[in-house]
């Protein structure tokens, strides 16, 4: 049997497949469809300091092989997260990565601090790349701010820190290196691409927020390229995200240089998608006699 164990800096995972933030809620619902403890890790919906109501509906819209969303970081806020959501998530024998977002650098520090004191939090993912809230993209489009926010969070916690980056930039390697310089243990690539759709009968945008973030198979080639490029220049591990629907897709990301991947939109289509990816990955590794996932990571041949 192939070994799927992987490592993201200090964070050890039994396998490299995790859920993507915002596509798994806080686990309560998906637990009806799969055994969460078989995952490599779970990443829960972004938590902010104060509760957020999110954007007005319509919040989502399907596009060709993809979807737009403008949820607007609807969440219960960190206090209720700790009292109401964390106890549930803590019970699974699987690392919990809490995804956090703030409006200011200080917000990230305070959230990191608050969550570090809680049992059952394995790592923090900094969402500095949400396209659906005011100033959501300010950090991840600016290398200086990226480095600062990561460094600030770094100082506030002993937990491993993952910086989640935006693909809506001219050169993502600059941002990834800034995250590394700021002390990130890993980066996750990518958050959604900003897009929109128009109802030609009403002449209105299909989302109340006008624009939204594109996810799903449509973006896979773009996400894969971001991972590949960053893998060439980074000294820290990468988590690949974007359009992963099955094991084949995940394997492309490993070969391009990702040490782990997150399954997002696929979970909407198949609530158990992430587990199917694990199974398919095992079959592939068996077929090609790959003993450890580490042999696969970054094994792309370009000569």
């Amino acid at each position, binding site marked *: 049997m192939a070994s799927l164990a992987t490592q993201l800096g200090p964070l050890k995972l039994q396998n490299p497949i995790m859920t993507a933030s915002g596509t798994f809620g806080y686990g309560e619902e998906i637990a009806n*469809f799969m055994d969460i403890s078989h995952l490599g890790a779970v990443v829960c919906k972004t938590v902010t300091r104060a*509760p957020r109501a999110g954007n007005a*509906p319509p919040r989502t819209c399907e596009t*060709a092989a*993809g*979807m737009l969303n403008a949820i607007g970081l609807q969440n*219960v806020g960190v206090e209720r997260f700790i009292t109401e959501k964390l106890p549930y998530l803590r019970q699974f024998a699987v690392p919990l990565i809490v995804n956090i977002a703030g409006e200011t650098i200080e917000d990230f520090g305070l959230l990191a601090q608050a969550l570090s004191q809680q049992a059952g939090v394995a790592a923090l993912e900094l969402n500095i790349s949400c396209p659906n809230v005011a100033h959501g993209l300010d950090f991840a489009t600016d290398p200086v701010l990226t480095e600062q926010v990561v460094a600030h969070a770094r100082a506030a916690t002993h937990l491993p820190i993952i910086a989640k980056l935006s693909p809506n930039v001219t050169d993502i390697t600059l941002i990834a290196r800034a995250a590394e310089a700021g002390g990130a243990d890993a980066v996750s690539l990518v958050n959604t691409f900003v897009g929109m759709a128009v109802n030609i009968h009403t002449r209105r945008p299909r989302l109340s927020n006008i624009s939204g973030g594109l996810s799903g198979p449509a973006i896979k080639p773009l996400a894969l390229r971001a991972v590949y490029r960053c893998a060439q220049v980074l000294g820290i591990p990468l988590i690949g995200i974007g359009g992963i629907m099955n094991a084949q897709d995940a394997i492309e990301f490993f070969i391009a240089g990702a040490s782990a991947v997150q399954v997002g939109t696929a979970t*909407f289509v198949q609530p158990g998608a992430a587990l199917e990816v694990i199974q398919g990955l095992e079959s592939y590794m068996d077929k090609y006699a790959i003993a450890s996932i580490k042999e696969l990571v970054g094994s792309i041949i370009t000569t």
Partner: protein
Amino acid sequence: MPQRILAQIIEQRELTPSHYRLRLAAPEIAQTAKAGQYVHVLPRATHSFDPLLRRAFSIMRAAEDAIDILYRIEGRGTALLARRKAGETIDVLGPLGLPFAPLTTHNILVGGGVGVPPLVLLAAQAVPEVRIQALIGARAATEIIGQEDFRDYDVPVEVATDDGSAGHQGLVTDLLERQLSQSGLTGQGLTVFACGPLPMLRVVAAMSQRYKVPCQVSLEENMPCGVGVCNGCVVPVLGAGDDYGNYRRICVDGPVLWANEVNWGHYSGDSC
């Protein structure tokens, strides 16, 4: 507990060029489904990622280990669904959502267009003691849905059509107004259950409030996941909402809500 099953198509019946009734072999769903619940259906082939997401359809009939849905061709997903033939299998998740509240002594079911199907199941699952009146709205006589089903369950039906080709010429809400003003049952264990286009539901909700009759509405929104994890399908509610603010996810905390819970003023309902 919702299940994901690959259901075989027992029958795909074309009712009009744009209306189809699909019967699926789905024992796991048929045995537990309650009126108001829906299934989430993947219309595409597994070899294609477009259209990407599932489509929601109310369960219209749940008997003999099979379920029926009735749908209108709206766009790409329903167009693809209509091409599927008996014998093929289809990926279905269900039953999903919260069902209608229990029927009361007297009940008026108000259905518009393809909003009728869940009301048919509501009538089918009624105990004999309750009294039910069904009101159906449609564009034209050919598009009236559920009339025969209600008759099979001995539920009296009144019909309204936009073009007057059957029943009352006008809106189904005209029929409701007549019922509410004449029946003298308001305040005597009467409940209204409604499903249909948003403009219809608005009027039904306002009318029920005016007559002080409790009213349940089954709502629609784009539903990426159907299981409560994406927060995409919210509608604005008065008061507390769900866990996440002044919105409620209609996929798991609906699709049926009490009309007086909905924040109608902030609900535009444009969907994509």
